[in-house]
């Protein structure tokens, strides 16, 4: 249906702009990008997308009919390259590997990644808009305390489980036991080596002590 991609783009644009509005670092990044246009061509599924930056966020538009001269940079990539790019792979390395084709202002790509994937959302300020400063701060403090307690509880649980498995129930060898076992095995290996060397030496001495066979006379 004709309007479906437009509807999806509208949804993505709204979500991204809402997130950018809550990132304290976004206004400075957007100011540096304002007025720039980036054309992204994805190979599979075949998709052309124009990202237009302005001071308040970005506009997403379909870019099927867009001429390359009308944009500041064009990037062509596959879904695999896209996932490598957003996970922080160097753009230069992707370009040298032949996975990424970029024409125009290459730094737009770096700036786009910083803007969209380095979001640090200020949830407390958004909560304050809805609840007021004090309740929002109390709620945020409560959430932070819960998160800290959750992390501590997780660490303690892991510690308890490992103690039970390794020390009490002895279901698995612990790191100390593994290292002790390794030391014993090394000692055993050295001892067997020595024993082998002594046996060899004994063998040689026995051979030396045995009288040489007498030559028979005619």
């Amino acid at each position: 249906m004709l309007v479906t991609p437009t509807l999806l783009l509208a949804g993505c644009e709204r979500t991204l702009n809402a997130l950018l509005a809550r990132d304290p670092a976004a206004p400075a990044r957007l100011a540096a990008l304002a007025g720039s246009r980036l054309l992204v061509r994805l190979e599979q599924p075949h998709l052309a997308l124009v990202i237009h930056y302005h001071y308040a966020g970005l506009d997403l538009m379909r870019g099927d009919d867009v001429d390359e001269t009308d944009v500041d940079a064009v990037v062509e990539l596959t879904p695999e390259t896209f996932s490598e790019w957003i996970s922080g792979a160097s753009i230069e390395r992707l370009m040298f590997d032949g996975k990424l084709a970029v024409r125009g202002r290459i730094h737009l790509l770096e700036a786009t990644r910083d803007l969209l994937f380095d979001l640090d959302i200020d949830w407390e300020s958004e909560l304050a808009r809805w609840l007021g400063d004090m309740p929002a701060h109390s709620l945020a403090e409560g959430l932070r305390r819960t998160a800290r307690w959750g992390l501590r509880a997780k660490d303690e649980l892991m510690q308890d489980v490992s103690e039970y498995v390794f020390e009490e129930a002895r279901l698995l060898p612990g790191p100390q036991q593994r290292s002790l076992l390794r030391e014993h095995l090394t000692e055993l290996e050295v001892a067997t080596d020595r024993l082998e060397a002594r046996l060899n030496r004994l063998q040689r001495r026995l051979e030396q002590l045995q009288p040489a066979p007498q030559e028979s006379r005619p």
Partner: protein
Amino acid sequence: MSPTEKRTTDFGFQEVPVDEKASRVADVFHSVAARYDVMNDLMSMGIHRVWKRLTIERAGVRPGHHVLDIAGGTGDLTLKFSRLVGPRGKVVLADINASMLKVGRDKLMDNGVGGNVEYVQANAESLPFPDNSFDCITIAFGLRNVTDKDAALRSMARVLKPGGRLLVLEFSKPNNPLLSKAYDEYSFRLLPKMGELVAGDGDSYRYLAESIRMHPDQETLKAMMEEAGLERVEYTNLTCGIVALHRGIKL
């Protein structure tokens, strides 16, 4: 024509003297201006935003362009265009109705739009701009309210730069008979009631439904645009033809 005979035109399903239509349409929009956006969302279930987005995509507006948004009303298209043209470009929001223009200006200012937007109260039939002034002209849900549509299209073609695009987003004729029947029921029964409840003005929304039926269908409007001097005219039916987006280029 004898001087006693008066030329008439349609105002919904009524025939009114030509010089009366503009003031009657003005009354309709004065009445609904304050609740215009809410009613649009309610009546179209929000789909009018998608239709407008598609218009913006098809407009191909770039930084530095000059854009004229005729019958721009509450400034939905202007808001987006002002960002796309950037500080080097210019968007003119034109509307014949002062109330709509005021609502649009307030809304745009609330959204931080300023430097590159101008507001002009103008009649689409005689646009107060020099020839070849704009890279793109849009008229969204406005052409059916114009008294002399041919004159308006000629005027738009005149102020368009060579190579510029005119986009007309307007209600049209649904291409499915079943949908057409359901759409009639909705327009003539439900719409005036919604108008009465939300905007406190059922008659204005009755006019809206009637004016949609009186508006030329897709092919007729295409021919009118070609007659006005536009070329490569094409149209896209949206939501089964309830709305059509016509695009023509001045060569």
